[in-house]
């Protein structure tokens, strides 16, 4: 039933290299340097994706950049992207207002697989803006809540000011059927929450390591300690999914920029089961 709602992944526009214009219908300011755009296609056709997939977003006359989808995969009429200002294109994107148009190519990439976690505890390990690409997956897991054991979110940010989707984290924490752990690296005096690393949260979270599937969405550097913490708890590499990032120009495996060893991150990734990439993950500058 659930599968029917989500599949098949729709054919990308006739030419996957040509962007589809979308209108910005809502703009939300998130933590400093982050904003969320809600988009609606101008051609009226619905937009379907699976959690973990990404789009190439285009700002007219400026350029294009790969951004994960961060909205609800069951809402085919609203495409949601949370974006951090880090480069020329995303800074230009930050200047756009409701009513402006943005180009969209996608969705591209392999989604987070959900079915392998059926019957297991589910652990999400993420931090700062990494929650944005993971949000569609958490939402979908909650949509299919009856299929899983414990559902645990481990989230960390630098400080108390940059906790992404803080309201949503509070909502999740208010549910009786999931655990939400939040930690910050540094906090002002008097802060009563947890201070420390996300790996530290993995150590204290309650889940059955033998029966857990973990989804890690962190920067490449921070993925290593997260995976290490999971190993220490006894979660094996074949039950850990990670997502990675590379330069992307096309999204369809033609431009070559996103290669890591024998894989193209745009179509073989960005989500990988950790045991399939562990051997190349440890090679510097690959």
């Amino acid at each position, binding site marked *: 039933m659930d599968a029917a709602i989500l599949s098949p992944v729709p054919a*990308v526009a006739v030419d996957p290299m040509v962007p589809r214009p979308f209108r910005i219908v809502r703009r939300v300011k998130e933590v400093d340097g982050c904003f969320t755009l809600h988009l609606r296609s101008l051609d009226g056709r619905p937009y379907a994706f699976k959690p973990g997939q990404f789009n190439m977003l285009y700002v007219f006359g400026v350029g294009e950049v790969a951004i994960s989808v961060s909205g609800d995969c069951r809402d085919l009429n609203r495409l949601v992207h949370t974006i951090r200002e880090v480069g020329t294109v995303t800074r230009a994107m930050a200047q756009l207002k409701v*009513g*402006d148009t943005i180009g969209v190519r996608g969705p591209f990439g392999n989604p987070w697989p959900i079915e392998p976690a059926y019957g297991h505890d589910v652990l999400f390990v993420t931090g700062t803006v990494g929650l944005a690409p993971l949000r569609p997956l958490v939402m979908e897991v909650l949509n299919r809540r009856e299929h899983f054991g414990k559902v645990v979110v481990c989230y960390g940010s630098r400080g108390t000011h940059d906790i992404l989707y803080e309201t949503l984290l509070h909502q999740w924490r208010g549910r009786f059927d999931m655990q939400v752990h939040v930690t910050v690296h540094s906090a002002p005096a008097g802060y009563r929450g947890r201070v420390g690393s996300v790996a530290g949260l993995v150590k204290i979270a309650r889940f059955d390591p033998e029966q857990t599937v973990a989804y890690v969405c962190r920067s490449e550097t921070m993925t290593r300690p997260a995976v290490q913490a999971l190993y220490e708890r006894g979660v094996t590499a074949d039950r850990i999914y990670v997502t990675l990032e590379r*330069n992307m120009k096309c999204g369809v495996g033609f*431009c*070559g920029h996103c290669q890591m060893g024998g*894989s193209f991150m745009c179509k073989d990734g960005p989500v990988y089961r950790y045991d399939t990439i562990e051997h190349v993950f440890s*090679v510097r500058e690959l």
Partner: protein
Amino acid sequence: MERTGTVKDRLAGNGKAVVGIEGLDALIAALRDDGYAVIGPRVRDGAVVYDPLDSPADLPWGWIDEQDGGRYRLVREGEAAFGHVVGPQSWKTYLYPPRQTLWTGRRDGPGFTVSAPDGAVPRYAFLGVRGCELAAMAVQDRVFGVTPHGGRAVGEQQFTDSGYAARRNAAFLIAVNCGRAGGTCFCASMGTGPKAAGGYDLALTELVGDGRHEFLVEVGSEKGAAVLERLPRRAAETRDVDAAERAVERARTHMGRTMVEDPASLLARNLEHPRWDEVAARCLSCANCTMVCPTCFCTTVEDKTDLTGDHVERWRRWDSCFTVDFSYIHGGAIRQSARSRYRQWMTHKLSSWWEQFGTSGCTGCGRCITWCPVGIDITEEAQAIKNSEGRG
């Protein structure tokens, strides 16, 4: 392009024919009549390049190329039209041009509209495609989704580059079996030449010397047979076929270079080999090897905006994994060192290509050796790593 029995039945004897020099004239004329732009080798700027041909007179008669690491010279020798081997260009120049417009956009009120360029497809007839180059096209066919492949299980989406596919499918291919090997050739050890293995419409072997100058013609497709039937020709005799085989055999035994066996697993288990530092000290990161390589396919995009800011164009142009920018993500480039960039290129070509596309990305054409300004030799680098293992 399938071989069919009916074609050979219509052609007398062994299905092979012999044409004279006037047969080349008729061949080019027939292809032009059929609406093909005939592209083939000719001498320009001191090199043999692939340019439009008006007649066989444009071919590099009596020129051969001396090639070695970092060295290419044209010299006068003999009278063959195809005595040279491969030059700095490959057919990807035509099938996947160095610059292509992906789409154009126009500002339209608060938004914009985009339109793809018109779909006119040039019909090329390539004259003089070598075995290594046919193999390179077969490799790019896999890269651009024209033919399925046994590589890594890809995601749920598989894409085809429509422009490449259209140009490729419209092309007429006339192979030439090499009667001479160049100083940097190593197709024999890559299993791609010097005889064209298939995938052509017609294949020529130049028979020159002993007072004769003719071409043995073999048919690879129905399309090829239909063109051959319009040429002045005679049926090939055993001595013609034997002479062609001898010519190819001579090339096979005169290869300038040899690739080690199974470089794929050799490199895969030597990602941290000290030889990478050694080659990085010589590599200029100039990207020449990737530009001349017939299978290298990497590209980047450029957005062009006019002065009003209302009209934009997106261009796709060849790119190279040897630039630092190539792997840039926020915060810096993944491959900062020349060592990592050379390793990326060479291991991709010989090793990870197998994972991706179920084939080698190297066909043994030798261009990367010849056109490397410091003469880095991919066969030598592979051999050096292999030798060090032997010393174990």
